[in-house]
């Protein structure tokens, strides 16, 4: 196994992907990344997909994998386990900077119930207490961590009491887990939940904006007429976002103990280079049929250098 000896001199470099980025459709992007790393370092690269967050995080933290692409929350966890895990690149915003390098997590309600959460024309989450809540899964950043943090802030719940938000019959009358962003949305649209948490990226294929925009609180979203399973029987139903939280883009990280300084530099340079951003296998064209790993919002979209400092907001959310 490549990672069996985690010294600087390791001949192969293992790159591990989160379940999300392990998707089959990103196979092309993964291969392109492999080639890029091989070209930069001259070493053999091994790609490793996984279907379990923990496994990916432990792999990079323990140095069995040298490079990983993770979510912001996962990075914080990995960094907490081992300070050797350091971010070196993240997806930029449309302007090619880190300023708005975020995506959105929502708390949504059904359109017919939206009124109940409106006060003087402004939506708030004051009324979510005692409702039926649907999360994605307890390992999700945008479908769990960020929403619970938002609710805790609103209701002044101490960190040590946050477990209350996760189980039925405490803060919420009922807590459901959709298992995925889609599943959480289905819970809401079917009426099993009153409030649901999910993000924009995962629902874009199924929902269209019918009022407002993806970036505005109080917008209305409707299930597309040609939506695939599990939305096939739910077409035309509408939901409203009553809260929107920015989530920081996840970083590319390496384990500084397991990767030589030289290789670290070479990889960071390659990833943030122009040619990398122009690789069509990695950054999808604006209207490409099959999306690649990173969407090209504009010409300036690219990977930019990041440090642990930039993730301070997420550090704060997680609590360490």
């Amino acid at each position, binding site marked *: *196994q490549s990672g*069996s000896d985690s010294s600087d001199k390791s001949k192969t470099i293992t790159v591990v992907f989160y379940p999300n980025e392990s998707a089959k459709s990103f196979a092309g992007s993964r291969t392109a990344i492999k080639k890029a790393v091989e070209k930069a370092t001259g070493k053999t690269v091994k790609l490793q997909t996984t279907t379990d*967050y*923990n496994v990916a*995080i432990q792999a990079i933290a323990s140095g069995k994998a040298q490079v990983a692409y993770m979510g912001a929350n996962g990075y914080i*966890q990995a960094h*907490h*386990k081992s300070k050797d895990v350091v971010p070196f690149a993240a997806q930029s915003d449309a302007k090619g900077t880190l300023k708005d390098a975020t995506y959105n997590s929502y708390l949504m309600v059904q359109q017919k119930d939206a009124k109940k959460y409106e006060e003087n024309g402004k939506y708030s989450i004051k009324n979510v207490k005692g409702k039926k809540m649907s999360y994605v*899964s*307890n*390992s999700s950043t945008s479908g769990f961590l960020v929403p619970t943090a938002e609710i805790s802030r609103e209701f002044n719940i101490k960190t040590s009491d946050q*477990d209350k938000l*996760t*189980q*039925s019959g405490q803060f919420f009358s009922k*807590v*459901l*887990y959709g*298992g995925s962003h889609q*599943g959480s949305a*289905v*819970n809401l649209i079917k009426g*099993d939940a009153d409030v649901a948490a999910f993000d924009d990226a995962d629902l874009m294929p199924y929902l269209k904006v019918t009022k407002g925009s993806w970036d505005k609180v109080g917008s209305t979203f409707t299930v597309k007429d040609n939506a695939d399973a*599990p939305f096939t029987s739910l077409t035309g139903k509408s939901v409203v976002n009553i809260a929107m939280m920015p989530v920081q883009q996840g970083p590319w990280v390496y384990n500084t103990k397991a990767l030589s300084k030289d290789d670290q530099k070479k990889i960071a340079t390659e990833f943030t280079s122009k040619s990398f951003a122009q690789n069509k296998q990695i950054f999808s064209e604006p209207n490409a049929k099959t999306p690649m790993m990173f969407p090209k919002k504009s010409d300036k979209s690219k990977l930019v250098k990041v440090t642990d400092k930039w993730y301070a907001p997420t550090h704060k959310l997680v609590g360490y």
Partner: protein
Amino acid sequence: MTPERFFRQRRLRLSVVLLILIGIYVISMALVNFQAWASISKIPAGLMWLFTNFIPTSRSISYLGPILYQLWRTLLVAISSTMVASLFALVFAILGAKTTTPTPALRWGIRFGASLLRNIPVVAWAMILLFSFKQSDFTGFLALFFMTLGYLTRAFTETIEDLDAEKLQALQAVGANYFQCVFCGVLPEAASTLTSWVLYMIENNLRDATLVGLLTGTGVGFLFDYYFKAFRYDAAGLIVLLIAILVIVLELTSNRIRRAIA
């Protein structure tokens, strides 16, 4: 036929079996790229890692209340699903066992059905049940019920097939009919084995809580998942410890019960 030839044939057969097994081993090792020695040498390290990371701390003791409550709920679901499933399994097993089946066609049908239930993967169960039956205890119960039914039907069938056929013949010779043979012969003869299977399945269902956690969002399986994914390994370790204790207690009780009814 001389003894020499006989034993040569024996040895030949044994060697063929061994060769096949070694072949399977080598081929699958190559196919999945498994490194035997490197892996075996890492086993102690893994155990060390487990014990250093998953030791419950004083902090995790404070979670004891909710964990015990969920453990209790899970135990209830495990018991009830096993009991209901074992009723059905018993009927299917009697109808499906070679020695007691009314018609061989039924036997194949039952074996096939049981195999189906056992081999539908967790992900598929989740898809089948979750989208239709919502996330609730009942859905968890259903999933456990079906899986248990698959295993118990097979186990019961084989238990019954292993009984001494002559003893059943003694009852047939008395003129007992099918049901009487079953109730007065098969069941008493197999009772202790069947009971130990039921008790074992309860234990198994208690452990196999991942699926239930997924389907119900409650239970000790959910809690484990929650702590595990939140990297609160001490609490997850506490859960494992409690499950282990409960499983051992169950096993001891089940041994005592088996001895008492044997």
